[in-house]
């Protein structure tokens, strides 16, 4: 029991008796805060940092060498922006490539534990800037990466496996933390990562509880059928019951993995399932580094000393000194830190719920879809073209997005109403010969999702250029097909 807990108990009325449920519940927040402030082994957090840093570095290098800087940032003549962030623009080359190169460098620093907090801060700023340049390139796991890197700015994740720790007098792999110079890791630091990951999984699981997923096994059925020609397993993948099994397993996995991996008795099975689940996804679907980010994130749920335990499993028990270093201690409460973390997590809980503020099916309108951990829910394709009218002269123009947009931008815009609206406003500006001239822009747009026949997506009679950009519900989205 900690000192503060002892102080509390000394205020209890005599004669001593076991506290009632109400009293215990009343003390729960305090006990929880004490738990959060309890010192923990920093090995797990450092291992997470190393894994994440390696992913960040390789991901940036891959971006550079595969020519995606050119494809995503440099080549497009027009960029889809986030509301309020229209000022974020790509740098001219070679600065944009240097920008991504710097991301690789900071990712390597994070992995090595060199100037970790500064490297994480720089990575967060540069990465977020790059992500804000082009909305068509939005990915949920990139958003998650931003959040996890932001955490690394504030938590002492470099007490182990760190060149920085060595430079400051410690030893790689063990414990300058013992000297108190690198900051002390607490249960709260792990809890922050766990809570964030739990939010991701739970919202991903909740989003799957829809009729397409549960009663039609879509889009899994469509995706698995693409593998129906594989030897041995192929014919099975065409079977609807397999699609249903995979769908239900996926939803159940998302909804339970944070708990299953936290409970010691189920943990070994949960780890095995997580590996199978994420590696299967990585093999089958084009999800990039998503699976690896999630697997690295899941290590935060393991006992903080897990790297030490793995080491001992393979190399024998650690020395007595190292065991002492791993001993749990307590540290003073830090309510400000906890308050900020709770505020962040509160925002994280609320943001995915904002879809409730918009009318219509979120998977059709996609209003409130981004930043909500709605992953792998949609197989969606669309087509859109624009009719531009200059009322003053009566001139009409048929505009195909391919005239200006890249393939990636066209594909994303075709199924996302806010991007169609943004491009319509851009076209109005493009065709406006003098300030204030009225230009009308209408969209011919069709979308098919999760195996349904295509249906008109945007009201073709609405002048999109007359509607200013905002976060309000877009009134021109037609109702979803049944």
């Amino acid at each position, binding site marked *: 029991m900690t000192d503060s807990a002892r102080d509390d108990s000394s205020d209890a009325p005599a004669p001593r008796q076991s506290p009632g449920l109400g009293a215990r519940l009343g003390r729960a927040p305090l006990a929880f805060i004490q738990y959060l402030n309890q010192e923990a082994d920093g090995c797990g957090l450092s291992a997470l940092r190393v894994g994440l840093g390696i992913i960040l570095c390789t991901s940036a290098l891959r971006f550079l060498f595969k020519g995606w800087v050119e494809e*995503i940032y440099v080549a497009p003549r027009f960029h889809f922006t986030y509301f309020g962030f229209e000022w974020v623009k790509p740098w001219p080359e070679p600065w944009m490539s240097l920008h991504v190169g710097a991301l690789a460098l900071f990712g390597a620093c994070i992995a090595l534990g060199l100037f970790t907090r500064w490297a994480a801060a720089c990575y967060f700023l540069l990465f977020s800037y790059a992500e804000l340049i082009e909305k068509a390139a939005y990915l949920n796991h990139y958003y998650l990466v931003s959040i996890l890197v932001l955490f690394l700015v504030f938590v002492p994740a470099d007490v182990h496996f760190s060149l920085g720790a060595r430079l400051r007098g410690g030893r790689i792999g063990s414990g300058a933390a013992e000297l108190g110079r690198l900051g002390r890791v607490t249960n709260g630091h792990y809890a922050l990562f766990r809570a964030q990951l739990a939010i991701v999984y739970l919202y991903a699981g909740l989003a799957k509880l829809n009729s397409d997923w549960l009663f039609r096994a879509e889009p899994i059925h469509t995706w698995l059928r693409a593998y129906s020609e594989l030897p041995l397993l192929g014919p099975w993948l065409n079977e609807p019951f397999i699609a249903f099994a995979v769908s239900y397993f996926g939803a159940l996995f998302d909804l339970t993995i944070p708990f299953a991996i936290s409970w010691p008795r189920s943990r070994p099975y949960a780890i095995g399932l997580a590996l*199978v689940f994420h590696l299967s996804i990585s*093999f089958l679907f084009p999800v990039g580094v998503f699976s690896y980010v999630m697997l690295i994130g899941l290590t935060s749920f393991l006992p903080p000393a897990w790297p030490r335990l793995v080491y001992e499993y393979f190399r024998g028990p650690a020395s007595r000194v190292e065991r002492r270093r791993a001993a749990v201690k307590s540290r003073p409460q830090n309510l400000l830190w906890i308050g900020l973390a709770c505020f962040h997590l509160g925002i994280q809980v609320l943001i995915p719920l904002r879809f409730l503020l918009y009318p219509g099916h979120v998977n059709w309108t996609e209003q409130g879809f981004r930043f909500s951990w709605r992953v792998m829910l949609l197989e969606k*394709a669309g087509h859109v073209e624009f009719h531009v009218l200059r009322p003053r002269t009566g001139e009409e123009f048929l505009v*195909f997005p391919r005239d200006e947009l890249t393939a990636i931008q066209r594909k994303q815009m075709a199924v996302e109403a806010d991007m169609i609206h943004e491009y319509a406003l851009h076209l109005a500006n493009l065709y406006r010969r003098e300030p204030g001239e009225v230009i009308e822009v209408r969209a011919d747009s069709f979308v098919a999702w999760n195996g349904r026949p295509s249906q008109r997506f945007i009201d073709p009679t609405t002048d999109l250029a007359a509607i200013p950009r905002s976060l309000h519900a877009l009134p021109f989205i037609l109702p979803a097909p049944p």
Partner: protein
Amino acid sequence: MLLFLCGATAACGPVSAVETDTRRLLMEGLGNEVWVPTYVEFEDRMDDLKSALKTLCKEPDEEALEAAQAAWWAARAPWKRNELLGFGPAVDLELRAQTNIDFWPARPSTIDAVLAGDDELNEATVSELGASSRGLPVLEYLLYSGEGSVEDRFAPDGQRCAYAKGLAADTKTQATALRKAWDPEFGDYLSNLVSAGRSGKDVEFRSIDLALSEVVSRLAFTIENIRGDKLGNVLGTRSGGTPQPDSAESRFSSRSLEDIRDNVRGVELVLVGKKKTSESLSVYLESLGHKELRSELRAALDASYESLDAITPPLTSAVIDDPEAVQAAIDTLRELQTLIQVDVINALGLTLTFNDTDGD
């Protein structure tokens, strides 16, 4: 576990002597039964055109000119059917076959300048000219325009004859190069589609889905190109409503609408095949449980042909005399484009993310 095993199997990618993957069989079938034979047909027609020009230039008269024009007209058909293959060898930087064979609309001033020059014109010198001075549109201009008698225009020693013969030989060479690039016995570009994503193969597409996606996207693009450029531009839908007859494809021969029909025929061969049993996307879609798409595609294709037939040729006049008919064709073809670009892509699960290896 099932998925894991499946994923591992997919990654290892068995290379079997007998292909079993329907998507790969589809690519193989389309390549060997449709695309390569169409390029062979184009080569043959170019040979016919070369012969016809030889006859015309030897003994120029109306009959020989008509024969040469008919040969040119016939050569356009296979070329336009394969126009959807606007990737790979067609845009290969070394070949630049698509641009060199079919740069349109033809630029009379550029062609007249070559005709007026003193340079010797033969296959070798023509192959050195820029894209706007080469290919089928230039041949069309030479065969279908010009003043004076046939005998005067196609005098055996004249520049027009030398230019036409040089162009035909050059285009035939390009056609052969293009066919060989696709032919499994030569360049075998087809294997990039058939063996896409297979380990141990240096292929352009990293997965069969990406290869299939390229083909389906090309079908949609072909229809959009018809609507936007071949009909829309001429009608003026992209220039504020003012008709632009000079921007029409094959405007000298009045083959504009037939060019479009051939484009649609090429799309039709991939979508529904020559016969119901032919290798086609519809057959694959049926195997995936999307039987309804075949009839919908068939209906959209039929409607497209009907709308094109409703335009009174030539297109250059129709855009002025009957713009409603042209607009109706643009609208009708949109239904075909939507079916391909939205319904077929969705049914095949080919929606691409921001790049082919990242996305959720």
